[in-house]
């Protein structure tokens, strides 16, 4: 048991942060719900970060650290599916960005994050998983009010897709949960940092807003929940236990609800504008908290996995 980064992990995180500083920040004049992180993603690929789980001595925990750093940036890029999920399902690299589609209800024409820019879709059919190469004509771009490039699959069938078999379903779901949990916790921590910084500067009634106890207490709870979510997510990446993955996502989705409301509450009206960069993270949280049916459904799944049915 060791919660500290080892030397290799420290080097990894330092390198990622340097890269993110150069390519991961939306310029201050940018106004919009999301900022395209394609250049950041290309740099991550060029430097081998998205296939780090395949490197000698590394694995999903280090891939989770990649997601942990990149998801805190204002630029948004598909990283989690490529870095965390693909190595668990495929021996070979799969060209990304990769969109994840839950079609276990038989419906795959729903809005999906990253689908408008994706090269492949990984589709959960409930009893099988399909890897579908995508052509531009397969996807309708959706101008959704979320902080991701979003699209909808327009194909009526999944012909040309590669079927991975029933055994792949639970593997996909486990790592999808880990990926979400890591991305959500990193997003929460970034939103919290931004909010705390604002509340130290902004005054109301003659004193910093962050000095009011009613504000402090709620932010302290947010901090506890966001940090809990991060440790649970990293733990799930390391233990490779499906139950840990479900627990981590259940916790993150529940915490995300609190943090979304409180960070916007405390940043007030400026936080509701695109002039203030809080939405880059909170609008991502809103999307991720609905995956797998949301916090309540994920909690039920977690209980099944821990205790059995």
């Amino acid at each position: 048991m060791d919660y500290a980064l080892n030397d290799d992990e420290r080097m990894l995180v330092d390198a990622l942060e340097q890269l993110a500083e150069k390519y991961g920040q939306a310029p201050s004049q940018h106004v919009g719900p999301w900022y395209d992180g394609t250049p950041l993603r290309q740099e991550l690929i060029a430097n081998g970060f998205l296939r780090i789980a395949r490197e000698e001595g590394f694995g999903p925990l280090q891939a989770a650290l990649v997601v942990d750093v990149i998801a805190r940036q204002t630029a948004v890029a598909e990283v989690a599916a490529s870095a965390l999920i693909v190595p668990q399902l495929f021996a070979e690299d799969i060209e990304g960005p990769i969109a994840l589609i839950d079609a276990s209800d038989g419906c795959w024409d729903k809005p999906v994050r990253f689908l408008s820019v994706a090269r492949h879709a990984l589709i959960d059919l409930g009893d099988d998983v399909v890897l579908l190469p995508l052509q531009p004509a397969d996807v309708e771009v959706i101008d959704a009010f979320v902080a991701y490039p979003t699209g909808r699959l327009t194909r009526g069938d999944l012909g040309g897709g590669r079927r991975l078999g029933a055994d792949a379903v639970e593997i996909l779901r486990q790592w999808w949960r880990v990926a979400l949990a890591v991305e959500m916790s990193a997003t929460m921590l970034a939103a919290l940092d931004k909010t705390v910084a604002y509340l130290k500067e902004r005054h109301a009634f003659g004193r910093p807003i962050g000095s009011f106890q009613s504000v402090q207490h709620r932010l302290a709870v947010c901090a506890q929940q966001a940090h809990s979510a991060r440790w649970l997510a990293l733990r799930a990446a390391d233990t490779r236990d499906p139950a840990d993955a479900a627990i981590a996502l259940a916790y993150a989705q529940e915490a995300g609800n609190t943090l979304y409301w409180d960070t916007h509450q405390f940043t007030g009206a400026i936080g509701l504008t695109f002039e203030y960069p809080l939405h880059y993270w909170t609008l991502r949280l809103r999307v991720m908290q609905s995956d797998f049916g949301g916090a309540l459904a994920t909690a039920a799944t977690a209980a099944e996995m821990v205790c059995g049915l």
Partner: protein
Amino acid sequence: MKFQWSQQQDEFRSEVRATIYSLLPPSWATISTGGVGSTAQLEFSREFCSRLSQHGLLVPHWPVEFGGRAMSPWEQFILAEELCAAGEPRGLQYMNVNYIGPTIMAYGTPEQRAYHLELIRQGRTLWCQGYSEPDAGSDLAALRTKATRTATGYVINGNKVWTSGAQCADYCILLARTGEGKNNICVFLVPMKISGVTVRDIDGMIPGGGFHEVFFDNVEVPESARLGAEGQAWEIVRYSLQFERIGVPHYAKNGVVLDKIVKELQANGRWRDPLVRARAGRALAANAAARALTYQVIALRVQGLPPTADVNVARIATIAAQKATTEFIGEIAPQYLANGISEIEGLYRHAISTPIAAGATEVQLDIVAQSFLKLPRVK
């Protein structure tokens, strides 16, 4: 980073678990129904801790010079988890080994160390904590109990309240003031079975006679009963609270109780209800979070870093886990609260004190906001 136990740590856990269960009598379920502060459990702890000591498992994390095995804080917590899951047969002696002993190590005189640490190490002595007063709970600086200087020591007058384990305690780690203000408070190691000390039971929400009022009427103690220097109490208390706030891994006992309830829900078919499972999942996740943050504190301790507000963050998570667990019991399995005394009812009744003990939740939140998030203090 590594979030899994080593083989050696797994083996240590197995050894600990086997030893605990070999030392528990068939009547343990009855003895433990009142909880850690009950008379039955406290008296049992003298025998249990003595035998645990003989197995080298009472203070394995203490330095060798004080009779320990110099094991790491991880082993200390593996031990604590297993004992907590078993119903904490150490009773309140967990305080002795977690923070009263280490505080004496840090601030005691050679004589105090030699005397008290040896007694604690043997597992035969019971302590209570004389901090709270009728007008000083989380606001410890408001305490009124007085220690007046005499030619040979001090005379103590005042009263303490909500004192767990006072009915059986041999010693009290007591706060009393020698003057006005926060900087004129002293810590005393006071024998409880001496003239002028009176203990009164207070009945209430906590089972097993957990609360007491302790009166000190002209209690004479020698100067050698003072721990540290005059006016050093604040530093000593802060030191000891860092250990106390995460000292009880409640999540371990919660896990046992949740497992027991779920098994019954599975047997009677209610587990098929996804809402029931969702409530269980929330409780399980809250406990997993408490464990994760507690481990974060242990990890810092293992690195030899000084205590930080991470302790308070972990405490908030522990409180949330207690709340989630008892909400699950109360809403999904209320029958356990109406069947007479049981370990589930005991947990439920004790849990309500978690947000108050070791500094109220609001104090923890203040510390997290100001020391962890660095939000501004109000002047």
